[in-house]
């Protein structure tokens, strides 16, 4: 027995590097493909050339026609980049909520983000602010307030809020806000179509200014969440045991929920409510790679980005020139894919 005393510390790297590498390659491929494909098909070479020509400090000239360059740089790329950012954020938000609440059914909309953003957007639209900055700002504020309210209600009983208390409070707050939103919607039947379009989610009017709007939130949120990747693993032991290991469970939970909410709210405010990404992507990663948040969080972000970029590509090409709501595509393609993953890896030691 003691002959093994100097057993080498086991490796954990290879899986993580392989999974991370594959998903990153898939993401870059998806983004190039989505930028190239459309009513006017542009070669991937021209796409890369256009991107390089637009990067600062890089004196690159391309022979691509100005029209194609404009299509790539002004129309498609902002849309693709925005879809990637939103997909990454929804996956990160879902992963974090699942970790903090220790509930595999948690999705990024559960604590009131969706209902709050929906109400915020509806208020903006019915008061005649359907365009410009007011709509996303209002959705963002609605989402953040809703989650804040959920947390307040859950912790108002005194003592630390359990995952269940937060979850139930979230469900109640969401129901209430959705009722108000529905009421407003029925009072303003002429705007129903616009409200509905927003709720279903779309990147059809994406521009670089949208990207600039969400980028800071997504970056800050992602940095905070990624910094907590090990804490998320410790929290899997529950409040008591993680407390005994030197974590302040309530404080860590609050920080993680706040960061996830801020990022998700920003993502939702420019994209509408795109379902399934936040719940399917992290679970697929868990089933395929590892249940450790050190793997699930970063890999889910990359996969979520790739998934939403591809879903948006399908949404705008499958019945062109009209567009499907991207949320419909994520649900229709995501659910069967998820069932497939579930079936093939079902026996893997009770991962779900």
């Amino acid at each position: 027995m003691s002959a093994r005393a100097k057993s080498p510390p086991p490796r954990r790297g290879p899986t993580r590097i392989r999974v991370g590498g594959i998903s990153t390659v898939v993401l870059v491929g998806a983004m190039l493909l989505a930028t190239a494909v459309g009513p006017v098909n542009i070669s991937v070479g021209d796409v890369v050339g256009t991107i390089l020509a637009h990067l600062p400090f890089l004196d690159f000239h391309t022979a691509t026609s100005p029209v194609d360059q404009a299509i790539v740089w002004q129309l498609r790329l902002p849309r693709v980049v925005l879809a990637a950012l939103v997909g990454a954020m929804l996956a990160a938000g879902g992963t974090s909520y699942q970790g903090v609440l220790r509930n595999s059914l948690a999705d990024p909309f559960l604590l009131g983000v969706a209902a709050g953003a929906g109400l915020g957007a509806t208020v903006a639209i019915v008061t005649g602010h359907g365009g410009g900055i007011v709509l996303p700002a209002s959705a963002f504020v609605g989402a953040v307030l809703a989650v804040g309210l959920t947390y307040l209600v859950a912790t108002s009983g005194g003592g630390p809020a359990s995952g269940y208390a937060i979850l139930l409070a979230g469900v109640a707050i969401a129901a209430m806000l959705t009722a108000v939103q529905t009421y407003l919607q029925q009072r303003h039947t002429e705007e129903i179509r616009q409200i509905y379009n927003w709720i279903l989610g779309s990147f059809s009017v994406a521009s670089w200014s949208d990207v600039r709007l969400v980028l800071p939130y997504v970056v800050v949120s992602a940095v905070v969440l990624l910094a907590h990747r090990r804490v998320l693993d410790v929290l899997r032991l529950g409040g008591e045991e993680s407390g005994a290991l030197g974590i302040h469970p309530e404080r860590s939970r609050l920080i993680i929920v706040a960061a996830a909410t801020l990022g998700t709210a920003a993502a939702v405010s420019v994209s509408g409510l795109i379902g399934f990404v936040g719940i399917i992507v992290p679970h697929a990663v868990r089933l395929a790679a590892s249940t450790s948040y050190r793997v699930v969080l970063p890999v889910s972000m990359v996969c979520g980005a790739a998934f939403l970029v591809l879903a948006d590509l399908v949404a705008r090409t499958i019945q062109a020139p009209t567009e499907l709501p991207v949320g419909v595509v994520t649900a229709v393609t995501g659910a069967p894919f998820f069932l497939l993953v579930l079936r093939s890896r079902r026996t893997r030691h009770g991962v779900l």
Partner: protein
Amino acid sequence: MLTLDRVTVRYGASVAVDAVSESAAAGEWVGVIGANGAGKSSLLKAVAHLVPHEGVVGIGSETMSRLSPRRRARLVAYVPQQPELPAGMSVLDYTLLGRTPHIGYFGVESMHDRERSAEVLDRIGLAPLTDRYLSTLSGGEVQRVVLARALAQEAPVLLLDEPTSALDLGRRVDALELVDELRRERALTVLSAMHDLTLAAQFADRLVLLADGRVIASGPPADVLDEEVLSACFGGRVRVLTDDDGQLLVVPQRSRGRIGC
């Protein structure tokens, strides 16, 4: 050295632990016994600072309530009665969680943390199971893995809440023997809540008998394990016998329905 000074735990209006003052020397094993609801678990949780409590818990020259959670976790390792076993987590990853108090809040394990965890697993005889998932382990193996996580904390005080409740007879003795060896090797102060009074008598240096949160008796097993006191505290007839080797045997007896006399 662990000292408890008038430690009191309240849940609302009810008092679970009532002004318990005790101490344990470095390397000493103190067994906490008592009926269900006597306050054993609450006492351990108070020592680990996991429940709000009054009174003072001191370890060496440190006072637990004045320390950060991280510093506390470097002094006290706590093994709950029913540990949470996350799905899809390997034995090594689980053991590495024990290194948490030695790792910065935003940090990840260093090579050193990994070596220490591998050493602990090796010492406990779990090296062959390093990559196994927790869900594939037997009850006895789970108990050892949880102990490994606690040992990876490298805290001088080890709290065990009913460490053998899920194990069969043979595994119980194995588990307690292991704790005994480890506390001698590492001069660990062990405070454990124990259900099996016979095993408690064999392994603990000292026993503390709780009833309704109060210390009824405290001292060497032979002094604490008194038939009348135990019968009163546990609410049943209890015989305390001595076997040929001088070991104490605590045997519950049927109180009714015995035939003849």
